[in-house]
């Protein structure tokens, strides 16, 4: 069984999907725990770490380098989580933090705007126009963050093994489909894949130590 990462636009049902999968497959479901682990490594607050993923750096190299330290801390914390076994990660940038590793199933979840708006208009009593603006702003920030940090388009299906659209698929069906994919042999964490993850974890840990010990 693989590590599963879920990428999505804001309010697309990513947490609910992750929890469904975790329940279905018997995996831990993580996001905030990874941020907490990263914050502890850096001696900063979780909000500091979260903020570095939610707003894109300017194009000054210094700002990008500063951002990279935080990304490295989250990557290290995630790899430590992966070392304990399969999990479902629905935090930010999963498809990049575990890039090029075997044994990872990369999912992108998309949902129609109306579905996303409903969370804000129904549960948070936001007006429709304000809700649309909020979603647009968050989406634009994330797109920009990925473009600046990785030079990629976060919405490109080529970055993922499977893109799932909740326009007609129910959350339960999305969960079933992904569970089916997770059981396929090409996503199995082989001994080789496990060794590669561990080697990367050690390298990230050493690099992070080098960056933070100089401060």
């Amino acid at each position, binding site marked *: 069984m693989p590590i599963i990462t879920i990428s999505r636009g804001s309010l697309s049902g990513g947490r609910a999907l992750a929890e469904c999968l975790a329940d279905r497959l018997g995996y831990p479901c993580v996001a905030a725990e990874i941020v907490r682990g990263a914050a502890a490594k850096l001696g900063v607050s979780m909000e500091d770490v979260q903020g570095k993923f939610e707003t894109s750096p300017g194009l000054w190299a210094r700002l990008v380098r500063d951002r990279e330290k935080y990304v490295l801390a989250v990557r290290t914390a995630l790899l430590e989580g992966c070392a304990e076994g399969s999990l479902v990660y629905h935090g930010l940038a999963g498809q990049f933090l575990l890039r090029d590793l075997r044994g990872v199933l990369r999912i992108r979840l998309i949902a129609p705007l109306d579905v996303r708006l409903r969370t804000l208009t129904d549960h948070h009593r936001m007006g429709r126009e304000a809700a649309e603006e909020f979603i647009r702003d968050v989406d634009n920030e994330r797109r920009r963050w990925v473009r600046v940090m990785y030079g990629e388009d976060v919405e490109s299906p080529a970055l993922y093994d499977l893109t799932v659209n909740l326009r007609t*698929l129910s959350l339960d069906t999305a969960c079933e*489909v992904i569970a*089916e994919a997770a059981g*396929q042999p090409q996503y199995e964490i082989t001994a080789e894949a496990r060794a590669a993850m561990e080697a990367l974890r050690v390298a990230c840990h050493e690099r992070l130590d080098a960056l933070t010990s100089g401060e």
Partner: protein
Amino acid sequence: MAECLAKRLGYPILGREVAQEAARSLGVPAELLERKLGDRPSRWSRFSSLRRAYVVAVQATLAEYAVGGNLVYHGLAGGLLVRGLPRTLCLRLIAPMEIRIKALMDEDPAVDAATAGVYIRDVDESRARWVRVMYGEDIMDPGLYDLVINLETMTVEGACALTARAVRQPEYALNDAVLASLEDFRLACRVKVALASDAEVRTMELTATARGGEVVISGEAPLRKSGQTGERIVALARAVQGVDRVRLNLEWYDPYP
């Protein structure tokens, strides 16, 4: 992928046959129809009544096969041809260019990598442009599909298995309401073919919807001196088997302002 799904689900499978049958119904060679649908359209082609007739013919042919509810269609723009229909699972398969080039070279050993790459890019560009001009959509937009499956890591068998699993879920159950919708869709398509077959009416941008024998025709129509346009449209629709009532929802305009 289509063959795997059809076998696994026990569904009939269709591809190019739909375009070929549509061509026969129009009395034109299939190659001409396929070229019209797949060709790079010019800027004004969207408004070409002939191109509209081709699209309507393909849609109507597909509707005849889809009325039973179970079908795997792997022809061009399937998702857009049946857009809005219930119980329709729309898939896109993608793969890195290296994999696609290799597949083409395996199919035809006479083709080298460079030629294969150029061919694939040309076909992609042509299809993308056609969808953009005819439907105003970006063929690469994942929002157009229920699932986008990347064959970089997924095998065709794996893609087939998870798609079959989706189809077996409750929201894809075939029931009377779904069958009624498919009948309505077929009827609306037959009416659209009838309108597109008339030399005068085919120049108008009209569309049709149906519900239980009642057909509503919408769009724009020119005011003519004869004042007979509305009657002509109604008569064409009424002549289609299965149509009980016709309502017009037209915006009339002066063709000589």
